[in-house]
């Protein structure tokens, strides 16, 4: 297919601004994960060393959280339209066994994002604002004193649950990027090969060829 149309071998998938936005979100996510897990389980308390000790970890975590929320919000505003679920996505999810066994040819046609990517997007939409709200409630010394103690307790638990869901989701996200070869370049250089697009996102590929989307 690509042999006949060969003006440019690489297709643009993410702009420089989008890449920058994604990586600010990713870096703040990593900082938050390490500082948060340090205070979650004693076996991970040594992560506080990356931040200059326990007290610095406690001080920095919420500010980094605000940066991630703002950065993620900008990403979400740009990408939400591509993440609306379609009927094909349900079939894709039902055939998850084919997905994990690399039998992609049996799957229904995927557009710009597959159902897994879309579910991750909506998981982030659910957890990140919740993490911000609950994080403000337990933020000492600034805001926690203004809330009833039961509210603080519930916020702490919900914060931990949302962080767990989010971190688990991002582990899958990172693994998928490593597993599907040719994906990292999309977010590092902004481009993918035509063959990659045709294989993993044929619906998007056809629309790009028609000049409808990029």
């Amino acid at each position, binding site marked *: 297919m*690509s*042999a006949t149309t*060969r003006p440019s*071998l690489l297709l643009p998938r993410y702009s420089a601004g989008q890449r920058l936005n994604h990586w600010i979100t990713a870096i703040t996510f990593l900082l938050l994960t390490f500082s948060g*897990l*340090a*205070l*979650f*389980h*004693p*076996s*991970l*308390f040594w992560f*506080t060393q990356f931040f200059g*000790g*326990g*007290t610095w*970890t*406690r*001080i920095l975590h919420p500010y980094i959280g605000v940066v991630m929320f703002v950065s993620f919000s900008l990403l979400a505003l740009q990408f939400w339209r591509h993440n609306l679920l379609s009927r094909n996505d349900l079939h894709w999810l039902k055939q998850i066994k084919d997905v*994990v*066994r*690399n039998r*992609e040819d049996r799957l229904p046609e995927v557009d710009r994002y597959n159902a897994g990517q879309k579910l991750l997007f909506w998981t982030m939409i659910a957890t990140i604002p919740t993490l911000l709200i609950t994080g403000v409630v*337990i933020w*000492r*010394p600034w805001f*926690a*004193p203004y809330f009833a*103690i*039961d509210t*603080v*307790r*519930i916020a*702490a*638990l919900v914060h*931990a*649950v949302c962080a*767990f869901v989010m*971190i*688990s989701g991002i*582990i*899958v996200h*990172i*693994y998928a990027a*490593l*597993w*599907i*070869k*040719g994906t990292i370049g999309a977010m590092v250089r902004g481009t993918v*090969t*035509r*063959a*990659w697009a045709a*294989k*993993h996102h044929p619906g998007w590929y056809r629309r790009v060829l028609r000049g409808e989307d990029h």
Partner: protein
Amino acid sequence: MALQSLDILRRSATTTPSPQQRQMTEVAKLIDVTKCIGCKACQSACQEWNDLREEIGINEGSYQNPHDLTANSWTLMRFAETEQNGTLEWLIRKDGCMHCADPGCLKACPSPGAIVQYSNGIVDFHEEHCIGCGYCIAGCPFDIPRLSKKDSKVYKCTLCSDRVAVGLEPACIKACPTQALVFGSKEDMIEHANDRITDLRERGFENAGLYDPAGVGGTHVMYVLHHADQPQLYNDLPKDPTISPVVSVWKGIMKPLATAAMALTALAGFFHYVTVGPNETEGDDEEHSA
């Protein structure tokens, strides 16, 4: 902050046993509310011994001064007026850390060794390890720890662990003029309390009793109350205090399970890669060479 290092029953955010070769006798402070005259000598003695001073506040129409526990005031006389058995009663309760056998503060604390529990029952904060997160405040069923505005560390009654370690009684006990405060082994204190309760019942306080709540495993600060059936009369002393179930889930079951689940998710990814293998796009090479 004490010298006892061989008798650490529990240590916050620590999963292996702490040095606990030495088993101390369990101690307790008994606060006989029925004998308290509200003189606040204990409050003064606490500040004196710990070299702390409360800021001068304003009078809001109550004897209670300061109005609440603070990082400087680790004990506080709380005054309540209530009508019981047809007469006005002025109930005065010395508030402060209860030194729970099952301390919610210690359970919630994420910083190793910032909170310790000695085998004599004293629960102590080691402020130099405190990171100021305030989780102990969420963990405590009695609303005791106070975060300092000065240094963002939490402070509370130490039960004078430094004095008890060298065979002295807590400073507040020494100052009490009516022996409403007594200190000794927990066993002796329960016995002493029972004598008092028998006496009170004979004098018409049918519901007199000991406050040593089982929900937190018992406490190492106990009260003799004239109305043990209604502890809430004494400025909302909780009737059946327990560590909040929310905190128990957060710092109990969820902590190991969620950590394991995240580690297994990452491990599952690795195993998938080494069994099923990467998903490669054929034809990429052809394009590169083109």
